[in-house]
């Protein structure tokens, strides 16, 4: 037989579990969102229509992303940072995986790729089982939650020059870029996400977030081709601590950095072999600037 006090405290703590983790950022009402039901997307030669995605969104997406697209679906409270990021708040129109500069809207293709690819180390699966038309419609639906697309155009994608041949010189040069940009402050000198600033990182909503660990075999959230990695540090991941390096890394150096980052990753690669032969040491955080 439980006392009344015990019952109440049990009930209250149960309630707290459900209420506390929900970061409510919903700012728009259904009627406001509905004014943008005519939103379209253009992916290749496919035109997506928001209104055609309503059913698919209800069936596949609403559980996490919520009826208002604010990331407060009924499953959201169970996704706990920093291991699992909570669903995106589409109303804010801020996206990690873009081809466009920091502070700009992603292209329709970026959103389409995100839906298709899913996000590793998160609850977002790949949706490549849906037809191209369905995915394009969902892109339009995602856009219709945010008023930003009414007055704003997506940014101009950051150009990615053709990938050069990997050489030992380039890997060494990439190591210098890694040292100069001080990537290790968060990602660690061996890419193990254990840099001095790693433990205090927070996303834009004040939730803890982990730096990417290059060494644990998982894939970067925004894709794992060399072009994807190039794009990630040049555009930055908006909404997270990862800044854009577009003003500070020249295109040629960016490729060097991509090759150096590959040497951390557990997957077999030419870069990893070369680094082994070079007997590359991790960068020294205490070395004076320019003397690695």
């Amino acid at each position, binding site marked *: 037989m439980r006392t009344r006090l015990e019952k109440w405290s049990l009930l209250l703590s149960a309630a707290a579990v459900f209420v506390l983790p929900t970061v409510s950022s919903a700012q728009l009402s259904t009627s406001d969102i509905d004014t943008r039901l005519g939103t379209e997307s253009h992916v290749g030669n496919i035109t997506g229509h928001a209104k055609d995605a309503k059913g698919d969104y209800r069936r596949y997406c609403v559980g996490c992303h919520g009826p208002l697209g604010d990331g407060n679906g009924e499953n959201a409270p169970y996704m706990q940072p920093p291991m699992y990021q909570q669903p995106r708040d589409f109303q804010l129109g801020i996206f990690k995986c873009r081809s466009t500069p920091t502070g700009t809207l992603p292209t329709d293709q970026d959103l389409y790729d995100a839906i298709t690819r899913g996000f590793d180390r998160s609850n977002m699966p790949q949706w490549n089982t849906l037809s191209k038309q369905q995915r394009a419609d969902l892109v339009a639906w995602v856009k219709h939650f945010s008023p930003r697309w009414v007055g704003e155009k997506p940014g101009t994608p950051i150009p990615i020059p053709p990938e050069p041949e990997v050489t030992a010189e380039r890997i060494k040069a990439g190591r210098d870029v890694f040292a100069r940009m001080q990537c290790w402050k968060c990602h660690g000198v061996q890419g193990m996400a254990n840099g001095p600033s790693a433990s205090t990182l927070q996303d834009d909503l004040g939730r803890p977030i982990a730096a990417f660990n290059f060494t644990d075999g998982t894939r970067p959230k925004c894709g794992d081709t060399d072009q994807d990695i190039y794009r990630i540090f040049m555009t930055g991941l908006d909404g997270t601590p990862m*800044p854009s390096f577009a003003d500070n890394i020249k295109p040629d150096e960016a490729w060097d950095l991509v090759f150096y980052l590959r040497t951390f990753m557990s997957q077999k690669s030419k870069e990893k072999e070369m680094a082994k032969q070079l007997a590359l040491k991790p960068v020294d955080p205490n070395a004076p600037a320019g003397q690695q």
Partner: protein
Amino acid sequence: MRNRHNLAVVLSAVVLVGCAALILSQGVNAAGEGKITGTVKLDGPAPHMKGIDMSKDPYCSKAHASDPAHYETYVAGANGGLANVVLYIDGWTGAAQASNAVLVFDQRNCMYTPHVLAMDTGESFKVQTSDQTAHNIHPNPNPMTGNIPWNQSQPPGSPPVEKSWKATEFIPVKCNIHPWMNGWFAVVKGPYATSDENGNFTINNVPPGNYTVTAWHEAAGTQTQKVTVAAGAAASANFTFKAK
């Protein structure tokens, strides 16, 4: 031939009259504009500001070896003056302010200088770094206002970032690499001022009229006061905040 000649005469006349009107109007404005000056005080002793442990970045801790850093939520002078209060005119409907000197937000010794940078909507400002350690500059406005967050790296020797904001908002700024670094972009409309370490401020270029002056402090909140500015004169407004 003759027609073209006429056109040239008319055009140059229009340009001349236009220039004259512009110069005249500016002259009139400069003579007629007043200002609002005053002091912001803190009621009672300044709250204790916690020291900052910068040991995770040796560059930062070395920079403050002889002069330990403290949080700057409340910066009060010896006379009780409160610094970093932004003063502006509520509901300003006049023209955008002619840009003064270029506004600079500096990352120096792992702190922001100034801690609060006030600016007009659309006014451009520069973010620069004087440090030999990497920062990232990460303002976090509410995108619903029309101000869009961005996040740029600032390793040593970075070129300055030049930006502006569309809408009025008090925007928190932080560096994710150094979590103690926090500051504000105070985006207002019209003439503004920021109180210095003695709490003194002067809002310049205020045309004669009745106004409501707002004083904003990041932690102590906002206060308003009605003032009347006479042509070419200085109106006074003084504020006293209680620490929260």
